[in-house]
């Protein structure tokens, strides 16, 4: 009852100066809202990063071939053979923890369809791989009854078949069914029969320097054996006044490990065996997404701490604002304090009264901040849409993660925000309340 009355009294006193109270509350409001926003955005970003990394598969290890810098020549450029070789891939088979080995060779190519005279050649990516690639990269065919990914028969017979990505299918065959049609590569003058069309797959983000972002939308998949037979290991480019050549057997080897537990160990063995002869070898990189997951967790922690610090600073600033106002209020209400003391208030009563008032202020700020904080996902969406329509160029220059990230309200942030605002009220209200309580009642009564 008494506390309830103190609370009501606090509200009444605050309502004596509504503008002042609102401005004071603003500091805490901004602090709490920013805590919730920062946590939500941080969580959103980290979940997005996590999702992208996990889409690479936690039990996979990727061995990438890295193209060395080209020799500087005016019109003739050659790169010696680089990257992981078929022999080295063969060697990986002897590692017992490796379950599947997928050879991958990627080439930029142009694709077209001769049945449609309106189609211009489309620049895309030709990927030589094996049937397991679909599983590891999480690719699925559309309409499995009529289409399928590459099969081991295709690989063994080096068949001239291909599977194409949804986007490419849409562009080459706007009005036709691509299945059983012949895809034409004008540079090689070769045809491939389309046996499958893939479902759309979101691009993966780049991770560090060793794994580039992958956009699957214009991919064509053919059996690795077919690619090797038809195109060899040399890539030549001729243009007006220049000639370039590079030799590599494989762009990447992806291996699937029998157990997530063994990923690190296996990656170490692979790396050691690849660098057995030349420990300084630069043309291969062993990447285990699981490491990136760990790394992203650590980054997330760092990020959260950083954001937490910003939020803490804004709360301290808000708290100092409250303290400032409360000190002014205490001086202003010296007379009231004197009256109350004369009428029987103990020091503790006065202290409680002002403390409750400060806490009411900060909790109101906290609650409003909480409400605004919960609007974060909606507000971010609106903000993005506004930016997109008002300043498309600025929007385009945003990093991908800022475009697709969805803020996630961390459930903990609700009690946290409330707790923080009470704590700020107590911490920053204590001093003004003590000042009020320690006033000499006689002096206070005489105060004008």
């Amino acid at each position: 009852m008494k506390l309830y009355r103190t609370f009501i009294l606090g509200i009444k006193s605050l309502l004596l100066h509504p503008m002042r109270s609102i401005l004071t509350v603003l500091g805490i409001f901004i602090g709490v809202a920013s805590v919730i926003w920062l946590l939500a955005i941080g969580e959103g970003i980290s979940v997005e990063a996590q999702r992208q990394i996990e889409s690479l598969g936690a039990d996979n290890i990727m061995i990438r071939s890295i193209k060395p810098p080209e020799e500087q020549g005016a019109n003739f450029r050659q790169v010696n053979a680089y990257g992981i070789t078929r022999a080295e891939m063969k060697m990986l088979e002897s590692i017992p923890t490796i379950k599947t080995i997928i050879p991958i060779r990627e080439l930029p190519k142009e694709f077209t369809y001769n049945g449609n005279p309106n189609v211009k050649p489309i620049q895309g990516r030709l990927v030589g791989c094996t049937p397991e690639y679909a599983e590891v990269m999480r690719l699925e065919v559309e309409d499995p009854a009529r289409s399928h990914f590459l099969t081991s028969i295709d690989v063994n017979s080096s068949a001239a078949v291909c599977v194409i990505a949804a986007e490419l299918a849409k562009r080459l065959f706007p009005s036709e069914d691509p299945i059983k049609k012949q895809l034409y590569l004008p540079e090689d003058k070769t045809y491939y029969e389309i046996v499958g069309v893939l479902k759309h797959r979101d691009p993966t983000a780049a991770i560090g320097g060793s794994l580039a972002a992958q956009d699957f939308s214009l991919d064509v998949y053919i059996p690795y054996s077919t690619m090797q037979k038809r195109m060899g290991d040399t890539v030549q480019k001729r243009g007006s006044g220049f000639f370039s050549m590079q030799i590599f057997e494989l762009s990447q080897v992806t291996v699937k490990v029998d157990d997530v537990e063994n990923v690190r160990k296996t990656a170490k063995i692979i790396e050691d065996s690849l660098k057995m002869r030349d420990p300084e070898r630069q043309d291969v990189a062993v990447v285990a997404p699981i490491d990136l997951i760990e790394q992203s967790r650590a980054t997330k922690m760092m990020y959260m701490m950083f954001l937490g610090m910003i939020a803490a600073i804004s709360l301290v600033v808000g708290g100092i604002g409250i303290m400032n106002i409360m000190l002014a209020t205490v001086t202003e209400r010296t007379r009231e304090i004197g009256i109350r003391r004369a009428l029987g208030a103990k020091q503790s009563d006065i202290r409680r009264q002002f403390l409750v008032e400060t806490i009411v202020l900060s909790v109101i700020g906290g609650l409003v901040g909480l409400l605004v904080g919960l609007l974060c996902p909606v507000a971010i969406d609106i903000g993005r849409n506004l930016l997109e329509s008002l300043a498309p160029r600025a929007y385009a220059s945003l990093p991908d993660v800022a475009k697709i990230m969805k803020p996630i309200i961390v459930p903990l942030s609700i009690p946290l925000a409330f707790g923080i605002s009470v704590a700020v009220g107590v911490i920053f209200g204590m001093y003004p309340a003590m000042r009020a309580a320690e006033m000499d009642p006689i002096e206070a009564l005489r105060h004008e």
Partner: protein
Amino acid sequence: MELAADIRELTKTYVLKGETVRALRGVTFSIPAGDYVAIMGPSGSGKSTLLNLLGCLDRPTAGSYFLGADDVAKMTDDQLSTIRATRIGFVFQSYNLIPQLTVVENIEVPLYYQGRLGTKARKRCVELAEMVGLGDRLSHRQTQLSGGQQQRVAIARSLVNDPYFILADEATGNLDSATTAEILALFERLNNEGRTIIMVTHEDEVSGHAKRVIRLRDGLIQSDVQQPNRLTFAKSTNRPAAPVAV
């Protein structure tokens, strides 16, 4: 006779800027229950100091002060707060209502600090407000009341805890003569009903209404006289002492 307050050899010494000021130098008197005392004296006589001590807002340097059975001279700050809340009713020159509270809530404040709130307490506050003639202004605030009305609220507030005495400090100092008469009549009526009243004043017109006048000078009692021929409203107006509309 039962005593409302009993003061023996009360002294109070301040140290002000390195100089010792002997504000009270041994004051002894007692106030029987039902008395109506005016304390007078020029400035510097120790009047204010005595008022603070009587109001338990301060502690004496030496001597004793019995309020009922308890010597409050050596009580702690918290104990003094409790004494103020339960045994003393203050009425101040500048009314000293709390601006954010209504009339009833102001009357209620001393009960609040005794933890005696409730519907019963609220009812008593309303009755007191009615008694001082403010039954129709229960939810008004200080700014909506005249000086005389504010002082009547203050008097109602001083009565809410059934104090041993009402301690009025220049209670009519800010009021015009008509309102002063109103307030003094109210005091007289309360005194007739058995309330003990101690008022500090420097106006003879006001002290003339008291049954007894104590004059201070230089920290000592100069005179302590009964006033058998005091001014009363009963005599002058020839009607029961209730000029205030109830």
